[in-house]
């Protein structure tokens, strides 16, 4: 395959970022057209790359050019395009394209419309950069760029304090993870002298790296992934990131950026697989995150927050899949999740755009007024819940089977329970928001413009069909994505049955409580008051962090401040007082002795200078002559030494 294609895929968003930032105003649609056009081409090229690799998996590209040469070490820039990356290219460009188009409607009339599109291009570019990198260093660069653009986009409406704070929170929390990531990368680099994936995989598989380094490296990389993919315990930034524009949430905080962590772990799975303990950690962190955030999602009332916690939960699934060694399942779920979660967010955005509220209690009966949005939302929800034959069913099933077959029974039951919770909370949302009585606001709800609904419909179709490629005989199968065997292509009927049953149960319970109202939800709330309170307040995690981390830091800072005020300032003041006294004395001395000396010096310098300044005539040619004479002298010396 021609390496120009993937480079072009990456270069087009770079170009559109540059154009939009500099002269975007002058283009049609205030600059949006540049980004959209670039992405359309990128998307088509991605499809070409994907197709070519699907037809002939041996046409993988792995190219490097030396960027910095330190003699002993070299740092390379390079691209690595295999099936694995190709899937991501298609997913990223497609979702990004949908969001670009959708934003035309959603962001219409915004003051910084052009800037918004520039940020989107920047983000797309960095995400694609992550995907095509063939070494950890380059990946880290783009990783940070993703962080920056995420910060910019979350805080896009920075006039609102929560948005600005959320941007900062996301940035700082991610930095904590990135710190670990950096340690991991550097420890691997110090041990091996290379950043390249290929070389690192080879060395680690061959056992050429000591296990201590591998543990530190893998743990570090995983820590970075935890930060970016919002896993326990660094997930706290993601719900707050919902302060950004909703299409951004769809793009960054559902489909692509948060998936970067999963992509990273899946990409570096050959390193992880050499240290089973770390794999165990990854699996448990993923599983617990899935369960934990699903429980929180059950008790939320903000539509975007529900989706945010759901995202964390699904990311937990993916991480879990990585942890049990099923990288392909993780990527499969990542892709399907990208589609249906982006769809759900865009749907939520459509609702918010129309109702101007995030609170699901103020919605109700939206179905009659917003038929398209409601339909696609339900499709997304079914997919998220894992209802056959929607895409989520297949990908989630793959993960469940992987977990079951890897022998983690506890984790399996956690996953099953989470699946139940997932179905429950998402259908709770649907029954409250879209069915039942119409609320005041819902009565005036209007369907969003075409420019917003069309991308949703596209994503809806994909949410339905994207999973079918896993059905044996239907699609090409995800069997060998990235060289990971999806070793259980057979259908595990018992697992499938369990998950289906659980999903049905979840939907049923939600239906019973929120649609038929067999049981009043308020009474459940009161019965399990402590638990409900706990869930409603998100397990008080923010408060715990606040108490154990933020408050001590603030306290310590205050302490230092006080120290500063009393002791340091006192010392400074004392020194000042002493200085003044001393100066007074010195002043006397100065006038008499020093001035005399200075004047003497000045007099000497002036007399001398008067004599010397005649050399500086200001005539260039005399300077040239002097310089030439000097060179001539050198030449003569050289001649007689030669």
């Amino acid at each position, binding site marked *: 395959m021609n390496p120009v294609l993937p480079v072009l895929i990456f270069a087009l968003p770079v170009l559109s970022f540059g154009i939009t930032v500099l002269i975007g105003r002058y283009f049609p649609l205030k600059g949006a057209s540049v980004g959209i056009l670039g992405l359309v081409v990128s998307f088509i090229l991605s499809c070409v790359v994907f197709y070519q690799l699907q037809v002939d998996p041996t046409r993988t590209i792995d190219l490097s050019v030396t960027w910095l040469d330190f003699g002993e070490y070299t740092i390379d820039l390079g691209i690595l395009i295999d099936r694995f990356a190709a899937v991501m290219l298609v997913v990223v460009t497609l979702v990004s394209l949908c969001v670009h188009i959708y934003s035309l409607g959603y962001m219409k009339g915004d003051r910084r419309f052009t800037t918004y599109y520039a940020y989107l291009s920047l983000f797309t570019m960095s995400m694609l950069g992550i995907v095509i990198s063939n070494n950890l260093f380059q990946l880290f660069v783009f990783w940070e760029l993703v962080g920056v653009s995420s910060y910019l986009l979350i805080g896009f409406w920075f006039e609102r304090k929560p948005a600005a704070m959320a941007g900062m929170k996301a940035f700082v929390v991610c930095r904590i993870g990135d710190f670990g990531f950096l340690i991991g990368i550097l420890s691997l680099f110090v041990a091996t002298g290379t950043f390249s994936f290929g070389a690192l995989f080879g060395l680690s598989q061959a056992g050429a790296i000591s296990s201590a380094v591998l543990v530190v490296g893998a743990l570090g990389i995983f820590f970075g992934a935890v930060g970016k993919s919002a896993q326990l315990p660094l997930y706290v930034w993601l719900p707050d990131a919902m302060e950004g524009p909703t299409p951004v949430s769809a793009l960054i905080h559902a489909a692509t950026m948060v998936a970067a962590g999963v992509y990273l772990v899946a990409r570096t799975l050959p390193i992880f697989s050499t240290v089973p303990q770390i794999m165990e950690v990854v699996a448990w962190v993923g599983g617990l995150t899935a369960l934990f955030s699903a429980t929180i999602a059950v008790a939320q009332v903000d539509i975007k927050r529900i989706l945010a916690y759901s995202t964390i939960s699904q990311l937990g699934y993916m991480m879990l899949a990585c942890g049990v060694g099923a990288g392909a399942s993780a990527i499969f779920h990542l892709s399907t999740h990208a589609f249906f979660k982006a769809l759900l967010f865009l749907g939520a955005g459509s609702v918010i755009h129309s109702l101007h509220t995030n609170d699901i209690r103020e919605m109700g009966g939206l179905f009659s007024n917003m038929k398209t949005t409601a339909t696609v939302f339900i499709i997304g929800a079914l997919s998220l819940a894992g209802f056959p034959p929607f895409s989520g069913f297949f990908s989630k099933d793959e993960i469940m089977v992987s977990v079951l077959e890897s022998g983690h029974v506890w984790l399996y039951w956690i996953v099953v329970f989470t699946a139940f919770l997932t179905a429950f909370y998402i259908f709770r949302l649907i029954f409250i928001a879209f069915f039942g009585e119409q609320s005041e606001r819902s009565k005036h709800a209007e369907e969003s413009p075409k420019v917003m609904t069309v991308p949703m419909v596209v994503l809806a179709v994909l949410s339905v069909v994207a999973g079918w490629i896993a059905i044996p005989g239907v699609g090409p199968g995800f069997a060998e994505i990235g060289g990971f065997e999806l070793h259980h292509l057979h259908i595990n009927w018992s697992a499938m049955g369990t998950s289906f049953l659980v999903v049905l149960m979840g939907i049923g319970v939600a239906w019973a409580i929120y649609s038929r109202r067999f049981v009043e939800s308020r009474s459940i709330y009161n019965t399990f008051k402590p638990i409900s309170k706990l869930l409603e307040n998100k397990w008080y995690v923010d408060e715990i962090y606040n108490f154990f981390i933020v408050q001590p830091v603030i306290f310590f800072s205050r302490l230092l401040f006080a120290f500063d005020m009393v002791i340091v300032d006192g010392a400074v003041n004392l020194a000042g007082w002493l200085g003044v006294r001393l100066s007074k004395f010195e002043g006397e001395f100065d006038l008499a002795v020093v001035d005399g000396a200075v004047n003497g010096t000045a007099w000497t310098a002036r007399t001398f200078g*008067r004599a010397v300044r005649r050399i500086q005539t200001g*005539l260039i*040619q*005399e300077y*040239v*002559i002097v310089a*030439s*004479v000097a*060179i*001539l002298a050198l*030449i*003569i010396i*050289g*001649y007689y030494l*030669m």
Partner: protein
Amino acid sequence: MTGLETEEILSAIVFYLLSGVVVGSSILVITLRNIFRSALFLLLAFFATAGLFITLDAEFIAAVQVLIYVGAIGVLILFAIMLTRRIQDPVAKSTTRSFILGAFVSAAFLFFLILILGKIYLPPFPETGADTEGITKGIGRMLLTYYLLPFEVVSVLLVGALIGAVVIARKEEARGGEPPEVALERERKDREITDSKPDGNGLEQNDRKH
């Protein structure tokens, strides 16, 4: 004349002819009082140098030499002369005060340069001519691989020079949009003021005007 082929004599004739033109017109460049004519001789020197390059099998460089030196730099110099001189400007004196000193120093320079060149040994030209097919290709490959960084730096330099030249040479119309006559008048006054202003640093006014 033992051991000399006709080709050798001919190439010697060509060489001496071209270098005679180069050296002769260089001398004229620096001695002629009429600046326009000395610029024309400069172009002739460049052109003859291109001829020397061809005798050295560097056709590409020769073409570039003519293209850039004669076609661009030369024309630029002629332009500058046209903008700063009139044809009948009296040429009172074309040399500086330090004429004799300068001439002496450069003559000494030449003397020692020739002494040193007499000591330098360079291998005679290899028989096989340069592979004329590949010289353009070779230079191109060299510029875009081994010398890529200098190449980029030079392009940045050119852009910088271009912008700098525009900034320096453009008329100062930004000053409140006054018409040129007024601007000239004001400038003249400014200069008078500066000229007549005492130095202010307490040092006596000395050899400003020679």
